């Protein structure tokens, strides 16, 4: 089965759960910006949680089904219409051959995930189908989708009628908002910053800058001051780490972030809050950071991910 890309005014890339095992060679993980919505989309489509899907961001995008298929959509920041009807995200749908699937950008979020039953099929690179735009590999020829592309998907693993018309309970989704309080684990380089800066970081409001991308979200707000040194010898980095270069404006590492870095890290966003942060809109969001502990963060993440398994219900269409 396959989907044709009709029109792209944004950024559409193929992503699975990311590249694992190559970080020590400098290969970023890539994968979805909002991992929760990504996994929910797969589960709605009856897939295993790490199948490849299409990540949609930044603008309107239209597809056409080239066969009857079951699709699902999760995420925020988009309105969805299929053929002539408007539908909600966080649901699965049976789509007829020839119908269009339109994603219309709204200003309440950033990323949506289009999964198809059977998963998007491409040749994996370094064990993953995720697109790494900077490295020009993965996904479809290492690039974003363009109009005219045909994206193949696998076959339906289940009876399609059973998979379609299901929805993901709202209560089990991350608490998406444009004025979130994001929990962080402080360190490891807090001692590189003045006490006032740490206080500023934990008390003032930040927004996401327009220059943000899949690699990192640049934060705009009160700049932070280093005590003296503004760099350290390079060390491993991870998703959610907040690096502060010499200009004092923090950058949160996102899906395509480099594997190592040499700027001090003031804190790291907890896994459970990364989806909420990923959906923060440039120049609109008002983000506050709050300190938490590793134990609390892991508990929160287990609770969130536990909800993935049993939150799909028949849709009330």
């Amino acid at each position, binding site marked *: 089965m396959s989907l044709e890309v009709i029109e792209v005014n944004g950024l559409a890339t193929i992503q699975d759960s990311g590249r694992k095992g190559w970080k020590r060679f400098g290969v970023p993980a890539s994968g979805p910006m909002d991992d929760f919505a990504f996994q929910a989309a797969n589960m709605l489509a009856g897939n295993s949680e790490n199948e490849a899907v299409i990540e949609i961001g930044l603008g309107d995008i239209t597809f056409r089904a080239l066969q009857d298929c079951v699709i699902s959509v999760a995420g925020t920041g988009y309105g969805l219409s299929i053929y002539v009807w408007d539908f909600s995200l966080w649901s699965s749908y049976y789509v007829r051959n020839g119908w269009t699937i339109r994603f219309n950008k709204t200003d309440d979020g950033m990323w949506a995930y289009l999964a198809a039953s059977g998963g998007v099929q491409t040749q994996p690179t370094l064990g993953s189908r995720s697109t790494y735009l*900077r490295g020009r590999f993965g996904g479809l020829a290492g690039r974003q989708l363009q109009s005219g592309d045909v994206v193949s998907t696998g076959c339906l693993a289940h009876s399609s009628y059973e998979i379609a018309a299901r929805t993901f309970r709202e209560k089990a989704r991350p608490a998406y908002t444009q004025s979130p309080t994001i929990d962080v684990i402080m360190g490891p380089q807090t001692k590189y910053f003045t006490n006032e800066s740490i206080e500023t970081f934990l008390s003032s409001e930040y927004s996401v800058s327009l220059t943000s991308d899949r690699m990192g979200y640049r934060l705009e707000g009160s700049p932070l001051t280093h005590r003296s040194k503004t760099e350290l010898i*390079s060390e491993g980095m*991870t998703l959610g*780490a907040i690096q502060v270069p010499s200009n004092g404006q923090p950058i949160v590492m996102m899906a395509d972030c480099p594997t190592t870095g040499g700027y001090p890290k003031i804190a790291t966003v907890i896994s459970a809050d990364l989806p909420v942060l990923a959906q923060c809109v440039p120049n609109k969001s008002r983000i506050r950071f709050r300190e938490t502990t590793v134990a609390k963060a892991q508990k929160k993440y287990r609770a969130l991910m536990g909800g993935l398994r049993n939150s799909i219900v028949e849709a009330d269409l």
Partner: protein
Amino acid sequence: MTFKSKIVPLGDSALLVQVGDEIDITTNQRVHALAALINVSPPVGVIETVPAYGTLLVHYDSLLLSFGQIKNYLHEKMAQAQDNVFRKGKQLEVPVKYGGEYGVDLEAVARHCQLQMEDVIRIHSEKIYTVFMMGFTPGFPYMGKLDDAIIMPRLEIPRTRVPAGTVAIAGSQTGIYPIDSPGGWQLIGWTALQLFSPESESPFLFSPGDEVKFIVEK
């Protein structure tokens, strides 16, 4: 001899083993020794490790392992990690065309170090370097340490495009750009070797811990 290290969290699904905070061969060998020990049979929940100069980053699945559990495991491994278990990496020779269009900063480096260009080439190609770590872009080897005579800081304003294969230096480090990318290091030469071929069965020319010697190519 076991070594003292500190384990600190980097968020809720990664942690850093801090062995040292300087660019130093012994420290780095300890990092690789610990990485090797873990990678032989990683426990369920350990996703991957990233060795750097003086730290080992461990990515783990927090749904399977708590911070306490992984910390205990690492303390055990650190007690076993002895300096002498360090397995030498492979030895590689890298042919380099120095200077001119291949290394546009060679002249500036010579001037900065008050040397002739031939001396910079000789000093750079004399030593055997260790691949301390890889990062920045896929396949980029951070190697060292350079002879003190040819140390020069990185550019103030990075170039937007450095061609693949370019050999460069910055501080006490030397490296090779595997793919066309932005770059702030001083460019002194170029190699025709391919450092990164994503579709190949062995995609990377180098691995962390390898030893590298540059060969002057006329």
